[in-house]
C-alpha cells in the first residue's frame, strides 16, 4: 500500500521506456503516440460511460457510498500515518449497532412508516446517529488501548497496519460472536425504482434505473464529506488537525495538543465509517459480518487513487473507482470488480504517481 506510485514507476522505469521509444520514432513520434493514445483511451471511456449510462449513474451512486468510507479512511491515513485495515469492520460494527437499534429499541417500527420514496422507515434517522456515536467512541478506545502505545514507541506505519489487521479480525470475531454469521436483513419496504429513458442522440434509448435509497445515500455522502471539509478548513481544531498531519513536531512546538487532534481524527474517521456502513447496509437491504471487510478493497483503491491522505481526493477517487467498477460489469463478470479496481489504479498511478489530487509533501 505504501508509495505504490513510486514503486511502479521504478519497476517500469518510465524514463528508460521513454528514451527507448524516442530512439525509434523521435520526439515528435512519441508526442503523436502519446496524444493518440490519450484520445483513444479518452474516447473509449466517454463512449463506455455514455452507452452504459445506466451503469454509469449507478456507479456514481455506488462511488458515493465508497466515498463515505474512503474519506474517513484517508483522513486516518493522512493524519496518523495508519492504513487502517479495520476500517471496513468499523463500518460493519456501525451497521450492526444500527440493526440492534432497529430491532430492540423500536421493534414496532420495523417495517412500517417508510419515508417518502425510500425503503427504510424513520428509525434509520434514530439508528444512524447512535451507530455513528458508538463507533466514534469505539475508535477512540481502540486508539488509546492499541495505537497510542505504539505511536509512543515509534512504531512504523507497516507495524501499525498489521496491528489494525489484528483489530479487524478481533472485531469481526466479536461481531460474529454476538450476532452470528447469518445474513441479517435491514428493515425495508420494497419500492419502485426511479426509471428514466434517455434518448441518446436519437440513436438509441437508454433506460436508467435508480433505487431511491441510493440517491439518499449519495446525498448523505456529499453532505457528510462537505461537513468534514468545513470542519477541517473553517474551525480552529480542524486546522490544527491538518497542521498536525502536515508536520507533527512543528505542531507540538506550536502548542497544538497532538494527542487531542489524533482523537478527533478517530472520532471523525470512526463516525464516517459507521455512517458509511449503516447507509451501505440500508441501501443493500442486507448485512453480513464480512460486508465491511469486502468493501475495504475499493476503499483503499479510492484512497490511493485520490492521493493518500487527501480526504477530498479520496472522494473523487471513490467516484472514479465506483464508476469504473460498475461500468466494467457491462463486459466482465462482477466478481472481477476488484481486479478492475486495481488495474484502473495501476494505470492511473503510472500517469499520476501521487494520485488524482496527491501532492508530494516537502
Amino acid at each position, binding site marked *: 500500500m505504501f508509495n505504490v506510485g513510486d514503486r511502479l514507476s521504478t519497476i517500469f522505469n518510465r524514463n528508460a521506456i521513454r528514451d527507448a521509444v524516442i530512439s525509434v520514432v523521435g520526439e515528435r513520434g512519441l508526442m503523436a503516440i502519446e496524444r493518440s493514445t490519450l484520445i483513444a483511451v479518452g474516447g473509449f471511456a466517454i463512449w463506455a460511460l455514455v452507452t452504459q449510462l445506466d451503469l454509469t449513474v449507478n456507479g456514481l451512486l455506488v462511488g458515493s457510498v465508497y466515498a463515505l468510507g474512503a474519506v474517513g479512511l484517508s483522513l486516518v491515513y493522512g493524519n496518523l500515518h495508519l492504513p487502517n485495515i479495520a476500517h471496513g469492520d468499523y463500518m460493519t460494527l456501525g451497521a450492526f449497532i444500527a440493526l440492534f437499534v432497529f430491532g430492540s429499541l423500536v421493534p414496532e417500527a420495523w417495517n412500517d412508516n417508510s419515508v417518502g420514496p425510500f425503503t427504510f422507515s424513520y428509525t434509520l434517522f434514530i439508528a444512524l446517529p447512535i451507530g455513528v456515536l458508538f463507533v466514534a467512541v469505539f475508535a477512540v478506545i481502540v486508539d488509546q488501548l492499541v495505537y497510542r502505545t505504539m505511536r509512543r514507541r515509534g512504531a512504523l506505519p507497516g507495524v501499525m497496519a498489521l496491528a489494525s489487521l489484528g483489530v479487524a479480525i478481533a472485531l469481526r470475531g466479536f461481531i460474529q460472536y454476538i450476532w452470528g454469521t447469518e445474513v441479517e436483513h435491514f428493515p425495508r419496504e420494497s419500492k419502485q425504482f426511479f426509471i428514466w429513458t434517455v434518448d441518446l442522440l436519437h440513436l438509441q434509448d437508454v433506460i436508467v434505473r435508480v433505487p431511491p435509497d441510493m440517491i439518499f445515500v449519495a446525498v448523505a455522502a456529499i453532505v457528510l464529506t462537505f461537513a468534514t471539509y468545513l470542519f477541517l478548513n473553517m474551525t480552529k481544531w480542524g486546522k*490544527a488537525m491538518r*497542521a498536525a498531519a502536515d*508536520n507533527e513536531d512543528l505542531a507540538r*512546538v*506550536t*502548542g497544538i495538543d497532538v494527542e487531542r487532534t489524533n482523537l478527533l481524527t478517530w472520532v471523525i474517521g470512526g463516525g464516517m465509517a459507521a455512517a458509511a456502513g449503516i447507509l451501505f447496509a440500508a441501501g443493500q437491504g442486507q448485512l453480513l459480518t464480512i460486508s465491511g471487510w469486502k468493501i475495504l478493497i475499493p476503499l483503499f483503491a479510492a484512497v490511493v487513487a485520490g492521493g493518500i491522505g487527501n480526504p477530498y481526493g479520496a472522494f473523487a477517487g471513490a467516484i472514479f473507482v465506483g464508476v469504473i467498477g460498475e461500468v466494467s460489469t457491462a463486459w466482465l463478470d462482477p466478481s472481477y470488480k476488484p481486479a478492475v479496481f486495481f488495474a484502473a489504479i495501476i494505470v492511473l498511478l503510472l500517469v499520476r504517481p501521487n494520485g488524482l489530487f496527491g501532492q508530494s509533501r*516537502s
Partner: protein
Amino acid sequence: MRVAVGENEVGENEVAPALEIADLEAGYGPTLIARGISMVVGKGEMVTIIGPNGSGKSTTIKAIFGLADVTGGSIRLHGEDITGERADRLIAMGIGYVPQAGNIFPTLSVRENVEMGAFTLHGDLDARIEKVQDLFPLLRERWKGNAGNLSGGQRQMLALARALVAEPSVLLLDEPTAGLAPQIVDQVLAQIREINRSGVSILLVEQNAIKALRHSDRAYVLARGRNFVEDTADGLLSNPDIGRVFLGLSGADEEESDV
C-alpha cells in the same frame, strides 16, 4: 512591533534577565550533548550562539522547548523556572521558537500557518494578524496561497511570522538562514534585528557566524558541549584567534570572505 508583555503570564521581573540558562545538561536518550552550558539573554538583547557541529548549539535551544532531554541545570524566563514546561505553556508565558528544518505547515495556507502560531491564545486574533502582516508585506501578497509554494526566504519569514503572532518577549531561532542564498541571508538577519529592536529578546543559533555577529549584541562560542568564549559581537569579530578557528577567517581576507 510593540510586544505586549503585560498579556503574558510572566510579569517582567525588573532585575532578572529575559532568559537565563544555567549549567544545562541535555541530549537525546543516552547521548549527552550539552554538558554544562550557561548563558544569559538580557532584556532586548540579540545573542548569537556559534560553534562547530555537535557543540550543543541547537540542543540548547531544543532543550528549552522539550525537544531534547534535559538531565541537569535550569532554564529561567524573566526569573521564573521554565525547565521542562510544555510547549503550550511556554508560548503562553511569552517564549517563541522557530525550528531549523520543517518550520512551516506546507499544505496549509500562509494565513493558516500564522493562525496556528496563535493556537494556544484566546480572544480576537485579527489585530495580532494585522500587525504580523504589516511586518511581512511579502507574506500579505501570498496570504491565501499554500505555504508549500513559498521560496526559502519567504518560508523563513512565515516561520518568524508564525512565532511572532503569539507576541513573545523572547524568541529562539535555530539557524534561520540555513539553505538560503547569500543575499537572502542578509535580508532575513536584518529582519530579525528589526524584530529585536522592537523589543523582542532574541537567542539565535547560526552557521553564518560572521553575518549573524554583525547583527547581534553578544555571542557565545560553544565547543564540545561547553561554554568556550563569551564576548560582545564586535569583540569576537576582532579577535584573531576566534576568527581563524570558528568564523573561517584567515586574517587578510576577513572582509572578502563575507562578500
